[in-house]
């Protein structure tokens, strides 16, 4: 693996507090598995450690992240201009493992969409997508996702959840059913994305496999929802990181492994089996 020089080619405000940043790399990054991340050296002397970001998208020699300005580092990044030089280490971590014979159900909360976009792009079969955010202002985050819509808009239309498994179903074609909810009900279903999923889960198909990414409290309610039917589920967790390489043991998540409960999110994760986490 290399620590790659990069140049910012685009650093756009998508909607309030959310930015998309495209970086051109000095060399190809190597094969990326959805769910993997990069450690980005933000070009500001005020920011000491690197910051982890999911690989939202990647090209031959580009990598794109979608990020939310929450603190010192991400705020500094918002003011990085085009042509600014950065260092990019990646792809890092264990990404999603897609199992045959299941219907992939992608569940994204807020900025969690950044971690699922590439999975959606690469899933070559029918699948569902649930997206929850705070208000309709954040719905544009879906805009980058290619929902081959068949007459439906990807965002905002107040719609009930149809029978996904029967309505579409060409083999090797993703099913195009983004379902949106907002916490304030300003668009889509009113509630959080786990409530939305609950209201639609029965319609999802025979063997759902949930892939989720979002704020950490979401995982506990997801667990409660999926427990009864023992729906398999992988989640992409976020944890403060120092190295991103497994060197510091700073980024651990607690698992149910009693012998060694704390697993490093950067190497054993960031994608974990929900049923192995201790939440």
């Amino acid at each position, binding site marked *: *693996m290399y*620590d790659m020089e990069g140049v910012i080619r685009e650093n756009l405000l998508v909607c309030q507090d959310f930015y998309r940043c495209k970086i051109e790399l000095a060399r190809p990054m190597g094969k990326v598995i959805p769910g993997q991340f990069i450690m980005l*050296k933000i070009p500001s002397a005020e*920011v*000491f*450690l*690197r910051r982890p970001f999911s690989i939202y998208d990647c090209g031959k020699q580009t990598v794109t992240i979608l990020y939310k300005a929450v*603190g*010192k*580092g991400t705020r500094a990044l918002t003011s990085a201009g085009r042509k600014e030089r950065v*260092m990019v*280490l990646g792809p890092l971590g264990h990404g999603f493992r897609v199992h045959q014979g299941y219907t992939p159900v992608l569940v994204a909360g807020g900025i969690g969409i950044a971690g699922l976009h590439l999975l959606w792009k690469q899933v070559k079969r029918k699948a569902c997508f649930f997206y929850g955010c705070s208000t309709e202002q954040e719905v544009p985050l879906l805009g980058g996702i290619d929902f081959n819509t068949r007459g439906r808009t990807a965002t905002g239309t107040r719609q009930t959840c149809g029978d996904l498994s029967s309505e579409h179903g060409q083999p090797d074609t993703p099913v195009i059913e983004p379902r949106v909810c907002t916490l304030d009900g300003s668009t889509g279903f009113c509630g959080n994305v786990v409530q939305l999923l609950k209201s639609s889960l029965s319609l999802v198909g025979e063997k759902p496999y949930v892939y989720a990414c979002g704020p950490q409290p979401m995982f506990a309610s997801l667990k409660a929802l999926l427990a009864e039917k023992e729906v398999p589920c992988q989640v992409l967790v976020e*944890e*403060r*990181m*120092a*190295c991103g*390489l*497994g*060197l*510091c*043991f*700073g*980024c*651990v*998540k*607690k698992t149910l492994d009693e*012998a*060694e*409960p*704390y697993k490093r999110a950067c*190497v054993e994760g960031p994608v974990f089996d929900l049923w192995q986490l201790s939440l």
Partner: protein
Amino acid sequence: MATLFVDLFGKTLRNPVMNASGTLGYGREIDPLWSVDTLGAYVTKGLSLKPHHGNPPPRVWEEGRGMLNSIGLQNVGLKRFFAEHFPLFRKRNTPIVVNFFGFTDEEYIECAASIEPDPLIVALEINLSCPNVTKGGICMGKEARGVFSIIKRVKETTPIPVIAKLTPEVADIVEIAQAAVSAGADGITLINTMPGAAIDLGTGRMAFRGGLSGPALKPIALKAVADVSRAVPVPVIGAGGIMDHEDAIRFLMAGARAIQVGTATFIDPFAIPKILAGLAAFMDEHGLSRLSALAGATHD
């Protein structure tokens, strides 16, 4: 061409640059980026007799030009280290320094006793920054008498050279180092992290507590190295905020025989190979043939 060889406890190391304990995983994590035989010696993650779970997250916190960590000494234990991780160093023919800790004097002794001498083991590095559970959790390395007795008993237990790694949270680090040396320590590593705290204004949450590492620690570490290396006859190994070869040279000038690089690797995983390259270039540029010439530079 300058040579970077350095003598330590009768062994000759390729170069004076080690990782700092706990900052290069078990070695295998960095090996795909650069071979561990790049190092003068690999210092193990802090190991204990039994595996140790460590602290719940969050465990790391950025703080100015430094960081706080409260890993809590998570490790797989000495046995699994030697079974699972040591073979890499054998394969790479890389000398190692075994950093270990305990929560009682007895645990230190048992650890030391359990480590078989091996041509690749340069030394045992005793982490004295641990809470002593038999003394109400007071840090092991704070009392000269306590340090003396642990080191003395460890030295009686093992034929392997012993390095005392000291905490800077003491009134007089020279006194502690002298106690360690008079108990038989073959070397001193300076310094471990400095306890600190931070408060996240955003969440208003209580202080995050952890050990401070990185550049913020450097002036404290340099002073410890300068003071202790003049006061004790054994080699001093310097650590604390070394970010580049210039910092490495500062520590060597201050009197360190070898140096350890920790936090720098988190920011640039290639920091160690870069420091080595920079060190060699500096020596050549200044016409110095041996590292010992650097130490001389500051004694004018």
